[in-house]
């Protein structure tokens, strides 16, 4: 039994000493290539993994419980810390769920929608670059890490110019966005869009035909479509198994039905195929961003939805009209009171399907807030994916699945 006053992990079911030739290896929770705090208990026959048991919860911070004790606007910065590589994607997913609950999704001004999409796609590029950087670092290609961070910093500069933060943006609000694009931002964006394809060509030049990279990735982590479906896999990992499913196309949110882009997918099923897919996805994101620039220039002013019952008025109104100021005071101190009901809003985050389920009882706090994070399902997949691979491939597969622990443990 675990002693109550000691912080010791549960080891009851684990027999390290065995009579057969199998060996139990503990991997993590502080392993440099575990991408956070993943603990894997591996049973090895020689160097081959026979059984894998992922142990999570080392970064459990109680976010869902926090969501039940905070007003909706308060919870928004907390979502930043979930998938911290693409914070705006989380902000957006939460904002969308609350907007659907309030029924103000269509009232969001067009310009706000365009800015949100810019942030989302920029975050997708940041996330994919980070994925490639760490994945390559795990497999042994140090220089790719440095090259990827070069371009990533340019994208981070854009985010910083917009919202002031590098990592935890909180750049999307419920009902719109807080700020218009600063002066000269679009020019910097188009400059970034011009340079980025060269960067992608650089990485592909380093990796595509690289003998070691191909040896480490090809035929490693074979994910059949059936297995992917039964484990609830989503995002690029699912599309790498030949299933063309993207929520941006299936259930378009924002203005994704107005822009033209393809859903890259491949039938290779292995890690190398997924790597090619991520590269292709970055190109598609660039394509979307390029289309958004003229759309932004045509759009009219207006950043927040007009819904005085739920959202504060503009700063000008607050300073000039007494009623708006009172409304703002009530909304800040007590919080908005959404109608009774429940909502689930799926979005396509860089890692897969990210959705917030909110059950509202008409209180300023959510009665239950459930987060469906893609990485959680991808970690479960490790149980099935790792057996049959060598110990050295474990690191490749973990890196390739693109898991982030803030999102898994929440």
């Amino acid at each position: 039994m675990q002693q109550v006053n000691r912080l010791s992990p549960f080891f009851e079911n684990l027999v390290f000493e065995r009579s057969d030739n199998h060996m139990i290896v503990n991997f993590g929770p502080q392993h440099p290539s575990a991408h956070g705090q993943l603990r894997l208990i591996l049973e090895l026959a020689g160097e081959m993994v026979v059984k894998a048991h992922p142990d999570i919860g080392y970064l459990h911070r109680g976010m869902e419980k926090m969501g039940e004790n905070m007003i909706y606007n308060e919870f928004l910065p907390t979502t930043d810390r979930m998938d911290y590589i693409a914070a705006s994607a989380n902000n957006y997913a939460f904002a969308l769920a609350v907007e659907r609950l309030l029924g103000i999704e269509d009232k969001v001004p067009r310009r706000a929608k365009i800015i949100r999409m810019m942030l989302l796609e920029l975050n997708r590029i940041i996330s994919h670059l980070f994925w490639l950087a760490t994945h390559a670092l795990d497999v042994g290609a140090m220089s790719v890490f440095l090259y990827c961070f070069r371009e990533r910093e340019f994208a981070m500069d854009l985010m910083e110019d917009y919202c002031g933060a590098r990592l935890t943006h909180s750049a999307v609000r419920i009902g719109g966005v807080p700020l218009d694009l600063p002066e000269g931002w679009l020019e910097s964006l188009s400059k970034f869009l011009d340079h980025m394809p060269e960067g992608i060509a650089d990485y592909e030049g380093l990796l595509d035909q690289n003998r070691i990279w191909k040896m480490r990735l090809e035929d490693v982590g074979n994910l059949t479509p059936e297995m992917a479906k039964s484990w609830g896999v989503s995002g690029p990992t699912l599309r790498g198994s030949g299933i063309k499913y993207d929520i941006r196309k299936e259930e378009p949110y924002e203005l994704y039905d107005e822009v033209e882009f393809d859903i890259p997918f491949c039938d290779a099923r292995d890690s190398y195929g997924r790597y090619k897919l991520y590269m292709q996805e970055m190109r598609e994101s660039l394509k979307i961003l390029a289309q958004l620039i003229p759309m932004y220039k045509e759009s009219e002013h207006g950043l927040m939805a007009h819904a005085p019952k739920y959202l504060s008025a503009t700063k000008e109104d607050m300073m000039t009209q007494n009623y708006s100021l009172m409304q703002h005071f009530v909304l800040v101190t007590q919080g908005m009171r959404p109608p009774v009901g429940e909502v689930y809003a799926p979005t396509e985050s860089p890692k897969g399907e990210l959705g917030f389920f909110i059950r509202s009882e008409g209180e300023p706090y959510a009665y239950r807030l459930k987060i469906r994070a893609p990485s959680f399902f991808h970690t479960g997949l490790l149980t099935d994916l790792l057996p049959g691979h060598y110990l050295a491939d474990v690191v490749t597969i973990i890196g390739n699945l693109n898991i982030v622990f803030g999102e898994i443990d929440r």
Partner: protein
Amino acid sequence: MAQHQVNYTKDGGLPVMLTTVDHLINWGRSNSMWFLTYGLACCAIEMMASGASRYDFDRFGTIFRASPRQADVMVVAGTLTKKHAEFIRRLYDQMTEPKWVISMGSCANTGGMFNTYATVQGVDRVIPVDIYLPGCAPRPETLQYAAMLLQQKIRRERAFKKLPKKRLV
């Protein structure tokens, strides 16, 4: 026969520098701080960014090591949860003396925004901390400044003194 004669009173004087052994050792220690990669959450990304191309941490002589036995400085980057607390103490004990700890970000400092049942309210409840970095997440420049402060701190220390046990808050 050597025709060349050196005048030791001119042109910068003797080609010899006088110092104490303390200074020499501290000079070496402060310019080759090896960091333990202790990425726990969001701050780990900024820690990696500071090691990458733009911020180039290697200038300070810092190299990120994966093993605690090869590291001098532990950068606790991220939220420490109660489930993980035992391991941070174990890794800290595995590091060889002299060792220092940088607590990076609000979560590691005080628990930050996560005042919940699962989070340790400050890493200094488990291991002694030398430098606290504010921010959520701190920028790479902040980590660089912390590294420079730590260098100053190391240079002030006496190299051969028996190190007093660091106090746990």
